[in-house]
């Protein structure tokens, strides 16, 4: 296994640029397990961009953030090893997992072993419930997303739905939740098509979906699979409404499909942050800051990265700075304002954001607008 130690010195550079006396500030070391390479690399890059924008604008007053990043190459085994290595370093006060559900689940199995607070990416429900005392998820659970999608399906009166899902943890949870919710919301899954995240052809899946004649397709694909599946959906001339996770939409997605205009009409289950201008309140203020910091319209994982920063500040500022103190402060967070939606943790539920943060968006010229 190859693990690359990538020291990101962005905090110091940004701090100096803003004239802060960072040299005198105590260091706050954060370990990051990130998919710097592999199929999940594009969302990870977006996450870092969002987090760096937060560091540039806010950071932790009086502390110099030092990130120590290990690449898991989008591989759960590597993620576990990288987590162990970082967690074993006593200088590290907090660990971020900027990785997919599969890898995050691998790390959860021994999250409590090292007694270091973890803020994790990943959409799988079981990352947040049952709660591991030391692991804190950010995004709403798959079930929250599927409830929001099911409500949309019911409002539109659709009864035949196709699901294209990955064989990884995220896709499996999506599928299980949809299957459970279908009877309750009055629809049937008429096509259930799976794929591996490194598949390059989705032709067979879309052919079977077309034959099943659904009224709506929900694709759980993200990263490279989202790009390829969307390209092939377009190439096959399909006009059945397509809904994808917000995580599917990234700069790499637009670049690869030939530009934002080519995705017009594509719908996405996303968190409210993607709707930008319509947010209002503190969320809108943070969103504007993020957009300014990035110099472009933020995508899903940019917002996630920024929110991770806000959660970090919310916990660190109300703790003694120790691992235990930060963990306890995280668990006390209640309706912490963030771009995507309020963040709340309880001892029994470490999911973070909930259904309040979910909306169905539609892409218009690269921007997300409410679908309804």
């Amino acid at each position, binding site marked *: 296994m190859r693990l690359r130690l990538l020291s990101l010195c962005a905090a110091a550079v940004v701090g100096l640029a803003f004239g802060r006396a960072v040299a005198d500030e105590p260091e706050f070391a954060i370990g990051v397990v990130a998919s710097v390479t592999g*199929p999940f*690399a594009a969302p990870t890059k977006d996450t870092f961009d969002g987090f760096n924008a937060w560091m540039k604008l806010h950071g932790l007053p009086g502390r110099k953030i030092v990130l120590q990043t290990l690449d898991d190459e989008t591989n759960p085994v590597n993620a576990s090893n990288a987590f162990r290595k970082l967690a074993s370093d006593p200088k590290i006060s907090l660990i971020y997992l900027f990785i997919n559900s599969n890898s995050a689940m691998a790390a959860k199995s021994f999250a409590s072993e090292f007694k270091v607070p973890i803020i994790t990416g990943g959409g799988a429900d079981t990352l947040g419930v049952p709660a591991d005392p030391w692991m804190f998820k950010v995004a709403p659970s798959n079930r929250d997303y599927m409830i929001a999608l099911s409500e949309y399906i019911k409002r539109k009166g659709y009864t035949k739905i196709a699901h294209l899902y990955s064989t990884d943890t995220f896709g499996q949870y999506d599928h299980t939740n949809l299957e459970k919710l279908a009877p309750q919301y009055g629809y049937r899954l008429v096509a259930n098509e799976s794929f591996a995240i490194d598949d390059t052809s989705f*032709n*067979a*899946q879309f052919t*079977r979906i077309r034959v099943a004649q659904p009224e709506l397709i929900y694709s759980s694909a993200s990263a490279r699979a989202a790009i*390829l599946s969307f390209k092939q959906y377009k190439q096959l001339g399909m006009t059945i409404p397509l809904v994808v996770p917000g995580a599917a939409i990234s700069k*790499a997605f637009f670049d*690869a499909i030939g530009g934002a205009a080519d995705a017009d009409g594509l719908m996405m289950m996303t968190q409210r942050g993607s709707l930008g201008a319509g947010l209002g309140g503190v969320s809108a203020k943070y969103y504007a800051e993020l957009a300014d910091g990035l110099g472009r319209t933020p995508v899903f994982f940019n917002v996630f990265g920024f929110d991770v920063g806000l959660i970090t500040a919310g916990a660190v500022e109300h703790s003694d700075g120790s691992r235990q103190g930060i963990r306890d402060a995280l668990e006390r967070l209640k309706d912490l304002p963030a771009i995507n939606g309020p963040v709340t943790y309880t001892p029994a539920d470490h999911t973070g954001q909930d259904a309040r943060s979910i909306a169905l968006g539609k892409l218009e010229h690269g921007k997300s607008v409410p679908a309804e």
Partner: protein
Amino acid sequence: MDTTVFLQLLLPGFTTGCIYALVALGFVLCANVSGVVNFAQGEFVMLGGMAAAWLIGLGVPFAVAILAATALGAVAGAAQEVLTLAPVRRQPHFIQITTTVGFAVVLRGVTLIVAGKDALSVPGFSGDGVFFLFGAILPVPSLWVWSATVLLLVGTFGFLRYTSTGRAVRACAINLQAARLMGVNAERLRVIVFAVSGATGALAGVVITPIVLASWDAGLSYSTKGFIGAIIGGFRSPSAAVGAGLFIGLLEALSAGYVSSGWKDFIVYGVLMAWLLLQGGVFLRGRVDATVGGP
């Protein structure tokens, strides 16, 4: 499912099969002249795709990018033989094979550093539109894949059949020692064949990229499927390898379409296992001494 659906599954499977066929061909050609299974074969496909996408992204004209990517594949193939395989020629086979795996990892790593981690796209050389064939909808870049495959196969088989170098390659495949005694320069031939394999794989990578994107980590999948094709083809006959590569592509597509998308890899590897067991004589009474490389 009707005929249109059958063709909608079959023809894209044929497109993928073309790439597997070219990779399988490379496996067999390299094995015939060097006795080594070259596990870097799929990386040439990745290299061609990444190089073309990267160059086109830099504004290099299509034709120049395609030629440069193909040439890069040829150079990489020749370099693999000269720099990594020739020095271990007298080592046991497993060392030589491990060396090809090492070369594949290096090629992947260098590509990652140079071209970056993101999947790269290339617009179709004659547009990204679609065309209809007996009711099936296919992307126009498929035509490029089919044409390039035909061109490469005709060129390769013409080279093997009608040129003195090609005949020497075939002679080496039949009996290396005898070919040497007849004055064939086997070392030179190996370099030529590895360069041709590299160029073939790279061109395959270039033409498939508008359909599947190019990514630094895509080579392993092509290597695996091409290897299966080469095994089923018997690892001796280039034409059998091509046929088997096409078969794998079609099997993958049809099993995903008619059985389940979740079962396609299981079916492909299941066929490989069944084939190996059959070839090994497992199902024949009294034949228990079959091993790789003969008894």
